[in-house]
């Protein structure tokens, strides 16, 4: 009898026991800081102790007067567009090459392209800091190609700071995109290509009318992930340029959040930057829903 009751109780209580660690940590360390960030964004703070209510002025100043934030926004947006414009064709191109029937050692090639993704942005920054140096490998190769010694100031020239970051991040992410595209390409029904070949469709027509529609959901996904990652760019330029870079030309939105919150010490202003980032990312997701009409598979 007693055992029976205990048994029933443990069946009843089980889901709560399973989910309660998650719910407690979720509320205390996610929902609470989230609401505090919203609260702080309407305040000016000096460290965590002195807080003064300022209404919308953080947001007004950020959007109307703060030139550094404008630069960070412009830098981040330009980086994201350039990154997607280069990464998508490169990843898709690699995936198409690897998807060819004639390729041997496909797994080996796939791993060589993908391996850079395992290296974190910070370590990539540390490696490329040296590769881009005055005596680094990249300048060596440029000199060999040019036939005489050339020293390009990759990391110290304002105009080259962001392109250097872009090169490093393309090295990091192209193989990653390729893995996704390859998976999508391999899921396209081969009978479609056979039928198209019998109808006399060329390679170009096959690509436009079979391949592209077949991988469209994956394309939408990789674009969205790249765009979200692009707007969150921080570690790579921070390490590679050792901060905001020459003339602050390597500053990004998240880097500005970090600098304002933890060098200047205004958690309120940093929060406001964080919520503007939220607004940008939500906007991007909305655009994606409109254009690709692709519903996520997550949900009830």
């Amino acid at each position, binding site marked *: 009898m007693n055992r029976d009751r205990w048994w029933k109780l*443990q*069946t009843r209580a*089980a*889901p709560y026991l*399973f*989910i309660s*660690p*998650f*719910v407690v940590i*979720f509320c205390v*360390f*996610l*929902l*609470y*800081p*989230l609401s505090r*960030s919203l609260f*702080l964004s309407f305040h000016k703070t000096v460290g*965590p102790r002195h807080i003064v209510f300022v209404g919308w002025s953080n947001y007004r100043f950020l959007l109307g007067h703060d030139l550094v934030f404008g630069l960070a926004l412009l830098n981040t947006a330009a980086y994201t567009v350039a990154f997607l414009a280069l990464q998508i064709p490169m990843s898709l191109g*690699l995936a198409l090459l*690897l998807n060819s029937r*004639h*390729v041997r050692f496909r797994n080996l*090639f796939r*791993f*060589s*392209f993908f*391996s*850079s993704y*395992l290296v*974190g942005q910070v370590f990539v*920054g*540390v*490696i490329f*800091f*040296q590769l881009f140096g005055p*005596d680094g*490998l990249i300048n060596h190769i440029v000199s060999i190609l040019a036939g005489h010694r050339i020293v390009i100031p990759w990391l110290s020239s304002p105009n080259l700071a962001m392109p250097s970051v872009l090169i490093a991040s393309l090295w990091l992410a192209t193989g990653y995109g390729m893995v996704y595209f390859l*998976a999508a390409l391999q*899921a396209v029904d081969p009978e479609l290509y056979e039928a198209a070949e019998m109808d006399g469709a060329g390679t170009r027509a096959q690509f436009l009318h079979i391949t592209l529609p077949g991988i469209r959901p*994956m394309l939408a996904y990789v674009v969205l*992930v790249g765009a*979200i990652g692009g707007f*969150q760019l*921080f*570690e790579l330029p921070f390490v590679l340029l*050792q901060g905001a870079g020459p003339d602050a030309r390597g500053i990004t939105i998240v880097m500005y959040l*970090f600098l304002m*919150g*933890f060098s200047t010490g205004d*958690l309120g202003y*940093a929060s406001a930057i*964080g919520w503007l*980032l*939220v607004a940008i*990312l*939500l906007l991007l997701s909305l655009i994606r829903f409109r254009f690709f009409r692709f519903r*996520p598979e*997550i*949900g009830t």
Partner: protein
Amino acid sequence: MIRRIALHLLLIVLAAVAVVPFIWLICAAFKTPQDLLGSTLLPWRHLDRLTLNNFRALRDQPFAHWLINSIFLSSLHTVLVVTLSSMGGFALAKYEFPGKRPIMIIMLGTILLPSQVLVPGSYELMYHLHWIDSYLAIIVPGAISVFGIILFRQSMLNVPDELLQCGRLDGCSELRLWWDIALPSVRPMIGAYTLLAFLAEWNSFLWPQIILQNEAKYTLPIGLNSLTGLPEYQHNYGIVMAATLVSILPVALLFFALQKDFISGLSSGAVKG
């Protein structure tokens, strides 16, 4: 035939571009300071000048601390987040209970939020908890993942209810059902998620950079970044390269151990948005 050779040549060239930074890194880690700047890859005419000194320097220095700290934090993080996500995911997939819908809705509402927006509020909380410069500030909030719990819920939906009922009739406790039935049935997903979780913590930078202040508590990314710009390491960059090489190895090993699960997880759509 010619097309086939051209295709492979092209792939080899592209793969070489992809792996050159790794090869350069491996070579640089064994070079003396004067060879590091002088020779692009290996000093072929003076192979006897290659040295293990860079690695020896890692044994003392703060590097040894950083390596141990990183291994400790990443392993603990992975165990915690995989355990709590799979338990929570099991509850959300296989039980009906009051409060389940609100939990799901609030959770899904936060999944699009960038983690950076939490940082100011979390910092304030850690300040009041006196967790600044404490690993608790990294371990506790990192023990849960909304992405992880959703991933486990989605794949555990496929566990047949009849199987769970059979288990109950045989006298298994609910905890046993989770451990003996639910977890084994999502094994490949666990492999893929373990790799992702370990990778995320191993490479994590922003939050530890804010929280950790004592150099002895640094993790590898924080420590290596702190050395990158220093003038005294400009001429001794081989040590930093050796440390970077050592930093990449554990992740590479874990990837090789779990790669089957990871690739099948990717292509089966488990990780697709």
